[in-house]
């Protein structure tokens, strides 16, 4: 694998972006990865530095071309992650192996017996957690949006509440989770409150910076040209703040899930976090790792397949070019 990567400069000037661009279509600006440091400074990569193209490069031999297909590289990446897990399972005594975890979770989902009186439970803890999560977000996101609009629109409110919002943002989710569980005990209230409290500052700060980034000259112009109020709101306010609003909502959703698990881990009698803790305390590590994995899987799928795509659309609508590596990679 490394051989492929390092052999690139040895090829006689294979220009990747030209090689696999469809004929007639304008070639996308892509970094010329065929240059390394050794072949000269002039050919530094430019932004946006793209990934490997959809087809392999013709300058490479057939097996190497396969290794350069994007989905093959992604497969290799996941294989590396799984290999690390399997290594840890063999090397460490507490880490369960992949097949142990899978078979445990199958028993858990089908409601089979784990030995003794322990019976698999899957849908009830998951459903309860999702319910708490949804309620928390349904309260936290609108509340954060109202706060954010006020912070962005009025200097007076910003002076009053901006520092408080920053204090709330600086507090780690775990502290909210602890406070909520000390205040509301083992009920469903504690997780919901923790989700609400972590969601509010993320939405508010991002939305307020969105509102404040609207060009005041545009506002003036729309006023002097007597643009209808509805159009002002839809085109100016919504168009200008949507990308920031989506970023705020996405962060609220991902960190809210985080604090939900913390509350359920430390003080709950039901839910995903409680179930993971239950198996941890019972020294059944496959069950514990399985639940954590499920927890990660849910939010990763939601984050990657839904939220980031919607966010990207919003950014495209507002014509903001994605320029940095971090933005291009969705971080």
């Amino acid at each position, binding site marked *: 694998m490394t051989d492929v990567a390092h052999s690139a400069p040895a090829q006689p000037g294979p220009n990747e972006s030209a090689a696999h661009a469809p004929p007639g279509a304008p070639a996308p600006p892509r970094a010329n990865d065929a240059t390394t440091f050794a072949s000269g400074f002039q050919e530094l990569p430019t932004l946006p530095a793209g990934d490997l193209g959809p087809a392999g490069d013709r300058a490479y031999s057939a097996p190497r071309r396969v290794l350069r297909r994007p989905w093959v590289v992604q497969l290799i990446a996941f294989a590396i992650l799984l290999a690390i897990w399997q290594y840890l399972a063999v090397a460490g005594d507490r880490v369960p192996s992949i097949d142990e975890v899978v078979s445990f979770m199958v028993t858990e989902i089908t409601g089979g017996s784990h030995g003794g009186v322990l019976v698999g439970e899957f849908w009830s803890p998951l459903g309860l957690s999702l319910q708490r999560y949804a309620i928390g977000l349904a309260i936290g996101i609108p509340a954060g949006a109202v706060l954010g609009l006020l912070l962005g629109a009025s200097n007076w409110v910003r002076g009053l509440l901006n520092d408080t919002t920053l204090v709330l943002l600086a507090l780690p989710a775990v502290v909210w989770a602890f406070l909520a569980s000390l205040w509301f005990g083992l009920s469903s209230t504690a997780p919901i409150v923790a989700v609400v409290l972590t969601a509010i500052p993320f939405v508010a700060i991002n939305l307020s910076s969105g509102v404040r980034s609207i060009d005041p000259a545009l506002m003036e112009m729309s006023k002097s040209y007597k643009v209808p109020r509805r159009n002002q709101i839809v085109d100016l306010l919504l168009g200008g703040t949507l990308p920031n609003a989506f970023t705020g909502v996405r962060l609220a959703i991902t960190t809210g899930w985080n604090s939900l698990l913390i509350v359920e881990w430390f003080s709950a009698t039901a839910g995903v976090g409680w179930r993971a803790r239950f198996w941890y305390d019972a020294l059944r590590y496959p069950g514990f790792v399985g639940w954590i994995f499920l927890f990660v899987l849910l939010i990763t799928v939601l984050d990657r397949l839904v939220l980031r795509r919607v966010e990207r659309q919003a950014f495209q609508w507002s014509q903001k070019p994605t320029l940095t*590596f971090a933005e291009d990679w969705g*971080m």
Partner: protein
Amino acid sequence: MLTVPSVTPDAMSELSAREMRRAVVRRWFFRFSVLIGWIAFIGVWYLFSRVVFNPQQLPEPHVVAGESWTLITERDFRTNMQASLFRVLAGFLLAAVASTGLGWLIAYNAWWRTLLRTIVQFVVSTPIVALAILTLVVFGVSSLGPIITTALVATPYIMMNVAQGLTGVDRRLIVMSESFGRTRSQIISGVLLPSSLISVLAGARLAFAVAWRMELLTEIFAASEGVGFQIRRSFESYDVRGMIAWTVLFIAVMLIFENLVFRQIERRMQGRTA
């Protein structure tokens, strides 16, 4: 900090005296509202601890302040804070070293870029609490676990910005240096390094913010000393006073670090490259 509308000398001639007065009034009005905001924050805190909850569930601000002071004067504070700070810095340095190499790779090589992109997207989407708990399983209760996990979480942010810095270098400067017969090492230390440093530092700052949150959370699950461990111990003994006091102190130390140290380095770097 907050930006307030200010009057620059250049604009002064343009503004009439009345508009200037208005700007000054507005600025004082803003400062006044910030002051009111803080008073209101503390007032609401008192209200919550007296009326909504009881002082045992949420101690009053002055009690927390007193507790923080007691903690600072105790020996416990120094050992725990040192342990946490050491782990944050060790993890952060580990991340910085790894990032230098990985950032270089993803800036220059599309194959590695695709590979690392997949791994980074997976790591970044993973909730940090899941990482903290998995640290407990893999490393047990130890000092190594928090360091490794902190490094793992901080690496993508620095790495991205190393690549960003390398791609943002002005090529004309490099071409010029080459035509003036500079050696490779001179170009690296004189052009590549200084012009990518600003971007790297911006990433380092963000990475540090991520790192200390991760470290705190990992300590809550898998440590036998440190601030996170103390917060957990306070939580388990229903000592809200100690919990808030430890949190406040830790955040204060980290914010001081973030703002003073990184800002100082940034200022110096800007002075050198300007």
